[in-house]
């Protein structure tokens, strides 16, 4: 029994390894060449909710370079990037762009020293203390791989960089800006979020990851 289990485990691992070592290697190359410097740039240059002007510009530029059809200024600073690749479903993947009004004390060499005027005119320190720079960089890395592998899939890929997730208004602003009627309604949607409470290299998928929020 133990022998059979071990054998099938080895076979499964070997199969998985072979199928994805190419993808894994391609991502590692892209990280070294493009994603690492992009992440550092985004980390050093956070912008507050609804004020992500330069971040949006950079995201649009990266997505255009990746071969996507890009529309800027959706719901304020939101960016929508589309890659049409034949018949099939439309799948949406979202990243968020805003930083927090927090003074970074991480001690990192590339820590943010940014101070920005907020939406009510106060000067505020800004930092990506919620990891939105990770999400944005991951979105670009995903764009690169999907564009490079057009032969392996069919359908439409929609990548969204939204404003103001922290102020719970950016997604709504994009929806109010006729998001689906302008770009098509996705059949599936995904989003990821980094957590310092989980191990690097691992993921968590639960049924109900987030609570409802009301601000008074």
């Amino acid at each position, binding site marked *: 029994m133990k022998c059979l289990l071990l054998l099938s485990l080895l076979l499964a691992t070997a199969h998985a390894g072979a199928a994805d070592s190419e993808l894994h290697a391609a991502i590692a190359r892209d990280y070294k060449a493009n994603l690492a410097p992009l992440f550092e740039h985004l980390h050093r240059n956070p912008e507050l909710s609804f004020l992500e002007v330069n971040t949006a510009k950079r995201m649009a530029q990266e997505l255009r370079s990746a071969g996507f059809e890009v529309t800027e200024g959706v719901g304020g600073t939101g960016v929508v990037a589309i890659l049409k690749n034949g018949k099939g479903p439309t799948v949406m993947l979202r990243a968020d762009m805003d930083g927090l009004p927090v*003074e970074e004390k991480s001690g990192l060499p590339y820590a943010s020293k940014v101070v920005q005027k907020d939406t009510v005119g106060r000067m505020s320190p800004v930092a990506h203390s919620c990891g939105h720079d990770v999400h944005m960089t991951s979105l670009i890395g995903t764009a690169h791989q999907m564009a490079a592998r057009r032969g392996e899939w069919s*359908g439409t890929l929609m990548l969204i960089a939204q404003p103001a997730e922290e102020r719970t208004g950016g997604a709504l602003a994009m929806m109010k800006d006729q998001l689906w009627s302008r770009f098509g309604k996705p059949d599936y949607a995904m989003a990821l979020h980094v957590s310092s409470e989980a191990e690097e290299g691992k993921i968590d998928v639960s049924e109900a990851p987030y609570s409802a929020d009301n601000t008074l």
Partner: protein
Amino acid sequence: MLGAQIVLALQTIITRDLAPREPGLITVGSFHAGSKSNIIGDKAVLELTVRTESPEARELVLKAITRVTLNTARAAGVADTMLPEIKATDAPAPPIVNDVALSNRLKKVWAEKLGPGIFSTRYKRGGMGAEDYPAFVNAPYIPSVYFRIGGTSDATFAAADKGGPAIAANHSPLFHIEPDRTIRTGVETSVLALLDLLRKN
């Protein structure tokens, strides 16, 4: 004085009004009142964040906030014409509920392609963070999966386990993650999921 009493009284909504096993949270994140030590202020502004996980709990808590605020004021002798004003500010966000079928499908893809070790064993959802992502997928309904990716190194966890510095949570000024493996995992899991959902027939 009244403001301080209201801040404390609001917490009893969570401890005494809500069912004990129904999650709920009220944070008075900001409290501004007064200008000088010897001037009794006549105004206080409190900013609240409320978190709940069911429509019934949300309704109960929001109604209770109004009841507690107005009646604590009345108990202090505030006239009906000068009662506290309560208003909603940032757009409310509904809870995120992953589509079960899609969730199972993607978990299977990730387990097959990356091995069952891809799933975190440390992560325990202890907080009540909120997100505005549901605005994209709630109405009209779009099957969706929202997942977390880990960002803290084993070494940092080991140090914390031994009594070293606690892991800085998201939103802390001390927050930091290891970008290399974290971002590469973000890309790999996203691409594998997308290649499955957009697979050629």
